[in-house]
């Protein structure tokens, strides 16, 4: 049968050849005939039934006869047109408008399926025909050939398609090379169908360079016809998606993630995502999802979500280059950039989200000398990304990022512009950094937040080498760092005090509460507030007041937990010592006293004041002692401290529900109200005060003061052991500092005192560390390891706190062992 068919075909071929140059009509008639003829033979599998096409029968009848005749005698005619060619020829209709001859296509498919080894040749032949049709501009036939190729691809994908695909791709390329838009679009849609086919044996030497180049070029079409432009661009975008789909999952294929490809693909997507030119057109267009901007976005998502660890950067790099090149960091287009990165963050595989952040960080580095508004924008985008990054996904580089952000903050402040407008932009940038750090911290587990805070504390300029090099430490930087710290602190949700204030954190924090600048000291107190306050009581303690009945304050009281009062028993003295030291700062403003009061009040509420009642009372009395004995303090400060003490005792007595004490306290307050109102908050904390608001002569009567003996009596009655109350108030850590501050001090000259204070501070700065070291040695905890990790990372950065090392010179070597850098103040 094979040879018989071949014969017939051969006959036809010669005719085809002969008529090739002639008119279409002539050929058509032959075509029509052939179709019939073919149908007949294939249906009947050998048994021949002439379908009875009268008009053609006469013409072709003889052929049939002839075929029949020779079929018996040979299969030896080498020049016969092979069956596959005939089958291919038959799928073409007489009239291109009629489209693919469907049942002949079925035959061809059937043939290809039963003789897959012929697929390659079928492909080649189809391609050959198509190529010719393209040259002759017979586009109808081109469409049909492509249709056939598509169908064969889909039907035969179970077989090895390598060579067939080669032919197929050649055809797609051929069409893409045409000027004709329709052909280009047709080619693209074929390519997309192909891309969706999973080949059994994909070819590893197939190259897609042309397709990527051409599709990318189409994505930038500047066709004068808007609809046409949109169609070409959409086709290009989808073509790119096809290439990505086809290559991405297969290691043997071209590496689509190579820069040479990504540098074409990514900008093509972004350019269309950003090109709003089409939007208006599309609003009233229902097929909105065909709009380039929309398609580009889809393809972009698709691309990002396919990126694995090794190649997410290959996508990000051209994204950033595109944004830079097209100057999209400016305010007008920032929304678009944010959108891009949101898409990236939502599409990227979760475990790689941190890479996005890392890459943005690096990009910020590369813009370190750029204008502050660009830097702001980058940080804004970073902020958005951090918001999206889920808790665990920020990854191992967390401290790196912090480190970097703080470094940028520092660089910005070091290079402050004198130009007002520019400075405003710089400030915006600085604020953006702080917000971002805060947001970053928010995503971290709580223990890491503490680490981060320590990390930031370690960056304080006066603790770094910079000061040694003569640069006056930048107050603004300190303030910024403190704000950052505060931001992070507010994100921390305190559960137990011991966790919120591990010693390694508490000591430096308390140390920092003694900074020279009163404004900064307030921020440190605010940090303490947010960390201590678990019940949002802070607003109620904003001002020093004497509340007759504190139940009216609407305080939310913490169920006193044993562990918190235990914590206070261990660490209370440091808190008290630090508060006392703070009270004595000459530079204090009303705000400072108020902030200190708030801290004290919060300690009462949160730490279980009944448990530590005695200590708190001792503390209050010591406070009063300072106001009495530290003569060098301005009168205003003394009054404020007295007033603060009264407010505090009033609160404490009521909170601890010691009625007799409350009565005593309110008694003293009543006397003050009548005789010395300047010792009460209403006067002492009145911001409108003038010198005349205070008495001219400083006097203190015993009745105005809270008497230790009387308080002791009250407490003894209640069964407290008050033996300690009479002992001088010593605090474990600060004792060495404060021991000397007594009446004698008042005789000192002002600057002598200042010198001394500095000296004290110095001691203060080193003293706690013996303790830290002792503690850390006994209990080498997780923190430690983390710290080392931080330090390791930090030291990798040339202008980051690695430079802290320099400061070590001045310190006791023992600290080097445990906390080589963080604790060197």
């Amino acid at each position: 049968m094979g040879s018989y068919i071949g014969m017939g075909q051969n006959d036809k071929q010669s005719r085809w050849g002969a008529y090739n140059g002639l008119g279409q009509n002539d050929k058509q008639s032959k075509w029509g005939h052939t179709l019939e003829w073919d149908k007949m033979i294939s249906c009947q599998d050998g048994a021949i039934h002439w379908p009875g096409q009268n008009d053609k029968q006469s013409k072709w009848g003889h052929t049939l006869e002839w075929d029949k005749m020779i079929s018996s005698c040979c299969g030896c005619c080498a020049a016969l047109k092979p069956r596959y060619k005939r089958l291919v020829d038959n799928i073409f209709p007489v009239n291109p408008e009629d489209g693919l001859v469907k049942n002949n296509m079925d035959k061809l498919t059937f043939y290809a399926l039963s003789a897959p080894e012929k697929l390659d040749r079928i492909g080649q032949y189809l391609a050959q025909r198509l190529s010719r049709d393209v040259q002759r501009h017979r586009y109808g036939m081109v469409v049909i050939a492509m249709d056939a190729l598509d169908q064969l691809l889909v039907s035969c994908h179970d077989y090895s398609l390598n060579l067939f695909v080669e032919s197929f791709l050649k055809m797609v390329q051929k069409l893409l090379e045409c000027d004709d838009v329709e052909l280009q679009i047709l080619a693209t849609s074929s390519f997309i169908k192909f891309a969706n086919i999973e080949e059994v044996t994909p070819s590893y030497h197939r190259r897609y360079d042309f397709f990527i180049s051409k599709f990318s070029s189409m994505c930038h079409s500047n066709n004068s016809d808007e609809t046409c432009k949109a169609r070409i661009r959409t086709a290009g975008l989808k073509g790119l998606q096809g290439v990505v789909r086809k290559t991405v999952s297969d290691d043997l294929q071209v590496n689509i993630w190579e820069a040479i490809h990504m540098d074409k693909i990514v900008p093509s997507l972004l350019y269309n995502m950003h090109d709003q030119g089409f939007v208006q057109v599309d609003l009233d267009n229902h097929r909105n999802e065909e709009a380039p901007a929309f398609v580009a976005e889809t393809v972009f998502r698709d691309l990002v979500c396919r990126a694995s660890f090794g190649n997410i950067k290959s996508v990000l790099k051209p994204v950033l280059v595109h944004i830079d090149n097209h100057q999209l960091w400016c305010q007008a287009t920032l929304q678009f950039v944010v959108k891009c990165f949101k898409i990236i963050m939502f599409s990227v595989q979760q475990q790689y989200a941190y890479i996005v952040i890392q890459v943005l960080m690096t990009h910020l580095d590369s813009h370190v000398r750029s204008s502050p508004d660009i830097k702001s924008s980058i940080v804004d985008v970073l902020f958005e990304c951090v918001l999206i990054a889920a808790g665990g996904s920020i990854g191992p580089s967390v401290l790196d990022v912090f480190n970097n952000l703080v470094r940028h903050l520092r660089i910005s402040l070091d290079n402050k512009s004198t130009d007002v407008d520019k400075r405003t932009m710089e400030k915006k940038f600085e604020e953006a950094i702080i917000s971002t750090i805060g947001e970053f911290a928010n995503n971290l587990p709580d223990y890491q937040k503490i680490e981060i805070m320590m990390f930031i504390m370690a960056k304080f300029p006066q603790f770094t080498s910079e000061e040694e090099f003569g640069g006056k430490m930048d107050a603004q930087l300190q303030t910024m760092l403190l704000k950052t710290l505060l931001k992070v602190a507010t994100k921390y949700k305190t559960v137990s005090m011991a966790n919120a204030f591990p010693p390694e954190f508490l000591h430096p924090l308390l140390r920092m509460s003694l900074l020279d600048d009163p404004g900064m000291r307030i921020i440190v107190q605010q940090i303490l507030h947010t960390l201590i306050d678990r019940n949002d009581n802070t607003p109620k303690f904003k001002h020093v007041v004497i509340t007759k009945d504190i139940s009216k304050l609407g305080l939310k009281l913490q169920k006193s937990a044993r562990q918190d009062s235990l914590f206070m028993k261990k660490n209370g003295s440091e808190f008290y010592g630090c508060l006392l030291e703070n009270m004595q700062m000459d530079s204090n403003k009303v705000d400072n006293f108020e902030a200190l009061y708030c801290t004290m009040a919060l300690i009462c509420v949160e730490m279980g004041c009944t448990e530590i009642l005695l200590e708190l009372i001792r503390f209050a009395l010591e406070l009063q002692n300072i106001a009495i004995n530290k003569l060098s303090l301005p009168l205003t400060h003394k009054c404020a401290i007295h007033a603060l003490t009264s407010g505090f005792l009033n609160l404490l007595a009521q909170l601890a529900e010691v009625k007799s004490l409350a009565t005593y306290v309110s008694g003293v307050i009543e006397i003050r109200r009548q005789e010395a109102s300047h010792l009460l908050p209403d006067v002492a904390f009145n911001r409108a005060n003038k010198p005349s608001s205070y008495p001219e002569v400083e006097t203190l009567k015993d009745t105005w003061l809270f008497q230790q003996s009387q308080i002791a009596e009250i407490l003894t009655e209640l069964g407290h052991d008050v033996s300690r109350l009479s002992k001088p108030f010593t605090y474990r850590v600060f004792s060495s500092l404060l021991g000397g501050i007594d009446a004698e001090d008042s005789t000192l000259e002002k600057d002598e005192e200042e010198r001394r204070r500095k000296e004290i501070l110095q001691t203060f700065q080193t003293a706690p560390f013996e303790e830290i070291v002792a503690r850390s040695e006994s209990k080498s905890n997780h923190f430690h390891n983390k710290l080392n990790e931080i330090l390791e990372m930090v030291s990798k950065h040339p202008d980051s706190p690695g430079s802290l090392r320099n400061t070590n010179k001045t310190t006791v070597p023992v600290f080097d062992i445990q906390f080589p850098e963080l604790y060197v103040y």
Partner: protein
Amino acid sequence: MEDYKYLFKIVLIGDAGVGKTCLVRRFTQGLFPPGQAATIGVDFMIKTVEIDGERVKLQIWDTAGQEKFRSITQSYYRAANALILVYDVCSQATFDSLPQWISDIESFAKHKVLAYLVGNKIDQINSREVPSYIGKQWADRFEMRFLETSAKDAENVDILFYDIAMELTKDAREKDKLESDCTGFNISPNTKTINRCTACFKF
């Protein structure tokens, strides 16, 4: 089935507005487009020419000169068999940016790519800013070929592209010869792949 013997990729580069697109369209379509819009990204055109009786297909990638497209256009350099660097003889500025272009070629194109320096718009005799000999000197210094053209008057445009086609064909033939000399040793079952490689001009 192949309707050409060789396929070459030619990439045009140069500052915005020097007339790259006009040169390509003059060559491929035989016209000087009035009000040619700036190219966005990369444009593509094809033209088959005959060299010594053989059909040679030229894939021409016309890049946008605008700075903002620089990174995408640069990604097209590497595949180029020939680069045409165009400046406008009536604009000193476009000539002054040649060093940047040269250094881009060095960083992104294939080593020893055939490079042509082209001064365009010579029809505007009165506004010429860059004399011929300066352009020539410059081209010599960087071992580029040199030609001055007018897309408007069709001057030297065909010559430019034909010269490139000829040179590339010559190279390709030599390469073919070399390879056919070697293939004797190379009886591998993987002939297909090898064919691919030797024919890397073709796809």
